[in-house]
Structures are given as structure tokens and as C-alpha cells.
């Protein structure tokens, strides 16, 4: 693998993921049918997960997709926000890096 190649992320088992969201709330609940675990995510993390359910993405493509949501942040902090969300989703085993 080319070390300069951007890391691409995807949901591990999109067919096993369920979610519940109620209008006006700032959190979303996600069920992972593979592990049986339930997670409380921020709405933004839920939206990132939702996007990764349909397709794989790099940090840059996520930045582009969420440019409206992150318009108030400068580039490095926007990148940090996306990386933190990806790190959170990876730690709970919902997403993985497909370059490896």
C-alpha cells in the first residue's frame, strides 16, 4: 500500500446496523447486530456513520460532504472533528479502515 494513499473508511457490517432518531434531539442510538452492542452517538457522529453506510469515504471526502455543518471551523479543526468521530466509531467497532 502506498503510504501517501489517503485512508478510506467504511462501516464494517452495514446490513447489521440499526438506528433510532427522534426529531429535535442531538443524539442518536445505534444498534450493532454483529456485537449486540447499543451505542449513544452525537447526531453528527450518527450522520457520519449514515454516510459511511452507503459508501466508503476518506477524511477529505467527509469534509466535503459535511462542509455546511463544519463551515464555522477552520480547516485543521474541521479535520480534527472528522478524525475524532472516525476514531470514536472505530473504537466501538462500527467502522474500519479499508486500506489495511
Amino acid at each position, binding site marked *: 500500500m502506498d503510504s501517501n494513499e489517503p485512508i478510506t473508511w467504511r462501516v464494517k457490517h452495514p446490513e447489521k446496523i*440499526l438506528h*433510532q*432518531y*427522534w426529531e429535535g*434531539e*442531538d*443524539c*442518536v*442510538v445505534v*444498534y450493532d*447486530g454483529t456485537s*449486540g452492542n*447499543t451505542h*449513544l452517538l452525537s447526531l453528527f457522529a450518527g450522520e457520519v456513520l449514515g454516510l459511511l453506510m452507503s459508501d466508503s469515504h476518506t477524511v477529505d471526502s467527509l469534509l466535503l460532504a459535511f462542509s455546511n455543518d463544519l463551515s464555522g471551523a477552520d480547516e485543521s479543526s474541521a479535520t480534527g472533528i472528522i478524525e475524532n468521530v472516525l476514531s470514536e466509531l472505530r473504537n466501538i467497532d462500527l467502522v474500519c479502515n479499508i486500506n489495511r
Partner: protein
Amino acid sequence: MKISDYSENELVGLLKRGDLLLDLKPFVVRICSDIADMAHDISLMYADFYTRPVESFSDFHVSVMRESGVFNWIKPRARFFFDGRPSFIPLPESQAFAMLEWGLNWCVAAHSHHYLIIHAAVVERGGRAALLPGQPGAGKSTLCAGLINRGWRLLSDELALFDMENSLLFGMSRPVNLKNASINVIKQFAPETVMTLPVSDTTKGTVALMRPPRDSVQLASCGARPAWIVLPNYSAGSQPIMKEQGRAETFMLIAEQAFNYDIHGAKGFMAVGDLVGRSQCHRLTYSHLDDAILAFDELHSGSER
């Protein structure tokens, strides 16, 4: 026949033979016991419940039996059996009836997976149910006891049974388990209530059970639509505060308090979502029972407006 139709001597005989089948809608429990006081407490607490003929099917076979041995002659102890197998450690015989209640809770929580079983009190008014989940000490049994003495129907003070197919809450309407200071609080709040003698030095402190209201027992097989989830939080000296609580956060709490959430997998996830989605979610901080009941009454009247 109802329990109140039997004399205590008849109940003692039925219990000794293991022929007492108590109808705890939706379950039937066959109870066996050689402890004489058991008949008295069952007669006191389950007076309005029906029995089933001895040859009927029962969901659970439970026994509370005196332990044998010299030590037990000096300090008698009793043990709970489920399907003939000893379950839990022996406890002082004075705790036998409380042990029966705890054992029955365990039977239901560990085996009745056609329901989502939530550690919560449930009360109903006008066909709409309020679910009161909470950690021990949050005041849910006290609040439940207060509410059912002020016009709300008791479904349960401990185990909410959520019918996942029909989105209805059930609860058996069994005796309310009061602990420590809440025993006197309820005695003063509703002096007409019938309670067992307090038993001290249990794992939960001093406990006493309160007889469920007759109307609640008669309606035990009627489910109620979930309408409110209220997390009670007793805080000495606090003004009553009813605060809206996020549904996603409430979901996590309900999932944590559901004994068989993990067993149901995706179905359990959808069921908790259904329950939470149908309910207004609140957190109630209170220090006086009257204030808390007023807050519940306002919730109820608000829903009618």
C-alpha cells in the same frame, strides 16, 4: 376462589402440599412452603388474587422451605427453590415472605422472554401508563406506593412487562416492596394501607410489603399504553422539578434497566425504540411525595388538554 376465601389454616395445608396455585396474571405460580407465617403473609398481601385448581398448568414451581440442621434450630433459616433446585443463599426465616417476592421477581425476569422486562415501576391512569425506571434508592417504589394511593392504578413497583407485539405494558399488580424510611412515609401518607410487619437486617435494609389495591388486582390483565417515562430522583430538601429528558438518553437507560434486552437483539432494540417513541420522557427530582404526585397529575391532565 380468591385467597381471601381461604382460612389461614387452609392456606397452611395448601402450601405444605404444594397445592397453592396463585394466579399472577399473566403467570401462574405453584407455591410450596412449610413455614407457617407464609400463609399469614400470603393471606394478607394476596387477598384479592385468585387461585387456580390444583391440576392446572403453572409457569413457575417455587418453594420456600425451612433449612434443616442444628444451626437452623437455633437461628431458623429458609431457602428459595425454583423447580426443586435451591436458588440463592438461605436467609433468616423472618425474611421468608420477602424472599418469596424476590424469588418470584427473579423467576419472571430470568424466564419470561416473550416480554421485554424492565426494572421499573409502572402505574396507569386513563389507560395511559407511566414507567418509572431507576436505580435502587431513586424512590420509585415509594413514589409508586404514593401514586396508587392517589388514583393511579398499580401495574408493578418493580417489573414492567412490555408486550413487544402490541406495545402494551403489564405488571401483575403484586405487593409493593417498601424499604427503610419509605415504610413510615407511606404509613403516614396512607394510614389505611395494609402492610406486612417490617423485617429488619435484610440485604435491602428493613423491608415491608404493601397490599396492592383491589381495583389494581382486578385489572391486572389489562395492559396500558406507554405514555410517560419518568426517572424519579429523590433528593432531600429539593423543590419538585419535572424536566424533559432526551429520548435517546432515555433509550440507553431503559436498555440498561431491561433484564433481557440483550437476549432480544434487534427486536429488543426496536421494542425499546417503540416504548421510548410513544412516551414523553422526563426526570423528576422531588423530596415530598405530595409534590411528586401533583407533578404526575399535571402530566396526566396536560395530556388530556
